[in-house]
Structures are given as structure tokens and as C-alpha cells.
């Protein structure tokens, strides 16, 4: 596989973008930062699928496409199946000799939002992972159904207010904790699973490249800060993502072959989750006295999770 140099940003910037502008994503959206970086991680041809969601409705609205590579969208739930169907066709046609250029290198990639990954497309993703196709699934996790006005998903963290799990006089927002999708995917026996963030561009690029290079079904959860539904100024996307990774709300790590866990980013100064929550409108209500216990709960969960990840890294089991 032709991977591109990620030695430094200057080298990396010599790649020719294959994701075009004049898409309809919100100003400051992290989705396109992640997609651009993925597409710049390799010079191979790409066959990409997308579930219905922000990325899909913003990059292929007739008569325009923002994709310079092959791309397909079918429905909300089946990007993993669409791209693995194409991967099966690639294998069949390669065997039969009916490909136009049988030597052209190609990678198969599926994108889904958290709604289509954690919720409605969960079964399709699980099935594709179990079948062992050679593809990489990337979840653009912005922790809500942002495309339809910000409803709760099973990726929405406890305490966030969404349009269907609202904060009010009798509610502090979502009551349930976020689903641990990374562990679930690692439990599928996937050869490479990771959680990555676009502010740490180099670890994200290296993770993408590992996933693309690794034969078999790989899964990556990426934090995609959502200016519209997290409620912060569009210019602050990278700043808010920094707060997410430095508070360890989003730890950056990989799991190889289901057990070998490597932490890929250790903040020099771990910041309080209050700094992260306070930068976003969706958590504003938590700073009221009656809701402070939720912040304490979130901090405790983060601390426990970080301790658990470090133990797993050490134990290698």
C-alpha cells in the first residue's frame, strides 16, 4: 500500500486533497477535517461508503459530489455492508480477471456518524466486522443525531442536553452513559481498533494508516466536535477537541488483535472535565447547583476509565 509520509505536517501537506470544498457541512465542522486526513493518508484508490448523516447529506446532493474517489450511499444503517459488498465484488472480479486495472491498489472505507454506528447501523457494522472483510470503518462521533437537529444517540454522554433528552426543571439531560463502542468492536476480534482525534493529527494519521494497511476489518472511533449541537463558536473546533483529549473525556488509544492496548496520547497536564464541559452550551445546565453532582459523576467516570485503560495497557490481556 502507498502510504503517505506523516513525518511532519509540511511533508503531509504535499498530498493532493481528494475531498472537495463547497460541500454543505457547517463552518468549522470536524467531519471534513477527519475525512480529508483519511484520504490524504494513502495514495491508493479508495472506494468509500457513507451512512446517511451529516457527511452524506453534505457531500452528495445532486448534481454535486465532493468526492474525487468512488463513493456510495445506500441508507442510514448499511455503509459497512455496502462497502463490503463492493469488496466482495473486487475479490470476485480480480479472480475472474474482469477488472479494468487488476493491479490498481485499492482500499475500502466506510464512514458513519455515531447515530448510524452506535444505534441504527450497529447490526450491519457487527456483521461486516464478523465476516472479516478487508475494510476500515470510521465513526465520526459527534455524540448526537446532528443531521436531524440534535437528538440523543447511545453515544451521547450523560448530562448533555439534546432535543430528545432535554435538560429542564426535572431533568439534567441524558441520564444514561455513553456506549463503549471501542471495546465492543475490539471484542469482535478485529485486528485493529482505535479511538483518535483530529487535534492530534499525527496519531490520527498513523492510526488511519495502520487500519488501512492491516488486512481485515478495522474500526476507528473519531471524536468530531460539533459546533452546531455542542454549541461552541465554529472557530473553536480544534480548541474544544484539545479540551476533550486533555481532560481524557476522549482518551486516544488503540487495541491490536483485541487485547494489546496502547495509549497514544498522555496529556502533560490533565485538565478538569469542568474546563471541557464549560466550553460547550450543551453542558451549561450542569453548572447549576442541583446538577453539580453530574459533573462529579462524569469526572469520576473519566478517572475510572483512564485507570482501566492504563491497567489494560500494562496487562496486555
Amino acid at each position, binding site marked *: 500500500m502507498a502510504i503517505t509520509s506523516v513525518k511532519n*505536517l*509540511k*511533508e*503531509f*501537506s*504535499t*498530498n*493532493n*486533497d*481528494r*475531498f*472537495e*470544498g*463547497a*460541500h*454543505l*457541512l457547517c*463552518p*468549522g*465542522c*470536524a*467531519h*471534513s*477535517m477527519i475525512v*480529508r*486526513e483519511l484520504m490524504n493518508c*494513502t*495514495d*491508493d*484508490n479508495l472506494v468509500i461508503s457513507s451512512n446517511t448523516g451529516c457527511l452524506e447529506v453534505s*457531500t*452528495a446532493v*445532486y*448534481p*454535486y*459530489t*465532493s*468526492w*474525487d*474517489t468512488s463513493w456510495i450511499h445506500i441508507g442510514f444503517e448499511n455503509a459497512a455492508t455496502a462497502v463490503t459488498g463492493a469488496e466482495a465484488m473486487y475479490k470476485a472480479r480480480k479472480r475472474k480477471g474482469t477488472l479494468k486495472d487488476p493491479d*490498481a491498489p485499492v482500499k475500502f472505507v466506510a464512514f458513519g456518524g455515531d447515530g448510524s454506528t452506535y444505534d441504527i447501523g450497529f447490526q450491519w457494522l457487527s456483521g461486516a466486522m464478523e465476516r472479516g472483510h478487508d475494510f476500515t470503518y470510521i465513526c465520526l462521533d459527534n455524540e448526537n443525531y446532528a443531521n436531524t437537529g440534535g437528538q440523543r444517540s447511545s453515544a451521547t454522554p450523560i448530562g448533555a442536553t439534546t432535543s430528545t433528552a432535554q435538560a429542564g426543571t426535572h431533568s439534567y439531560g441524558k441520564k444514561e452513559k455513553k456506549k463503549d463502542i471501542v471495546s465492543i468492536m475490539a471484542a469482535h476480534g478485529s485486528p485493529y481498533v482505535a479511538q483518535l482525534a*483530529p487535534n492530534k*493529527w499525527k496519531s490520527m494519521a498513523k492510526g488511519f494508516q495502520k487500519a488501512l494497511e492491516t488486512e481485515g476489518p478495522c474500526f476507528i472511533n473519531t471524536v468530531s466536535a460539533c*459546533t452546531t449541537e455542542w454549541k461552541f*463558536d*465554529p*472557530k*473553536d*473546533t*480544534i*480548541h474544544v477537541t484539545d479540551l476533550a483529549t486533555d481532560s481524557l473525556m476522549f482518551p486516544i488509544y488503540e487495541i491490536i488483535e483485541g487485547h494489546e492496548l496502547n495509549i497514544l496520547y498522555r496529556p502533560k497536564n490533565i485538565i478538569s472535565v469542568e474546563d471541557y464541559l464549560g466550553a460547550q452550551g450543551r453542558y451549561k445546565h450542569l453548572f447549576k447547583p442541583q446538577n453539580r453532582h453530574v459533573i462529579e459523576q462524569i469526572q469520576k467516570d473519566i478517572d475510572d476509565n483512564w485507570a482501566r485503560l492504563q491497567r489494560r495497557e500494562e496487562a496486555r490481556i
Partner: protein
Amino acid sequence: MSLQGNDNRGIRELGAEKKVGWDEVTQGVALNSFVGESENSAFLKAEERNYNDFNSYTATVASWRIIKPVYNRDICIDCQNCWIWCPDTSIISRDKQMLGIDYDHCKGCGVCVEVCPTNPKSLLMFSEAKDNNEALAGWPVKEKKVKN
């Protein structure tokens, strides 16, 4: 800038394309990114590609913008932070050098300014109406670090 040579970047407002009849829409809603056959675009700079009208590269979202980034070449260190984090593929960078802003595709989010590490910044946001030369003429000077 030679990038403007024979390029069809941003020539149409979204929605301004010709609305053809049922007999002329593409079969199965398929959209080709380029005209005819093309080399893998990973090996072609934007200005070397034969973009199809269906490619959003040929459309513009400039009208979304109320503020715009202005780029000051004199201060830039070509770190490429603005390039990696631009959500709209609107930082024109060639051979490790930052060349400027693609105003046809920039939506004015301001991420590039926030991630610019120079002092003073090499990118600053101005009103869309502000003349770029005027903005450059009044560029702020280096800020002294304040010790706490």
C-alpha cells in the same frame, strides 16, 4: 497565481446549475467526479484535474461567509496547521508552502486563524467587505508575552 489558469473552481452558486429535464438527468443518480478518464487524483494537483461540472469544486459557497480570513505572507512560517485543519479544503498549499485562501470554498469558520501559531498571527479574520490590502496594511505588530 497560476492556480487560476484554466481552472473552473467556484464558478457557480449552489442551486444556480441548469435544471435539466427528466430525459437529461444522469441514470441512477450517478455523478462522475471528472470529465472522461483520469489519473488517480492523489497524483494530480487541483489545477491539473479535469473537473466535471458535477464536482462541488466547480461550485462556490462564498456567499455563506460574513467574515473572512486574510493571509499575511510576510509572517507565515508555512507550518501547515491551517491546511490540516481547514474543514473546507480552502487553504491552498503547494510544495510545503502556504499560498493563500480559496475564497470560493472558504465558509469563514475561522479555524485557520485559531490554529495559527505565529506572533502576530499570519491569518486574521476581517469583515467580508474589508479590502485585503487595507487589512494587510493595518496588520497588528508582535505581541509581547505577558509574564504572570
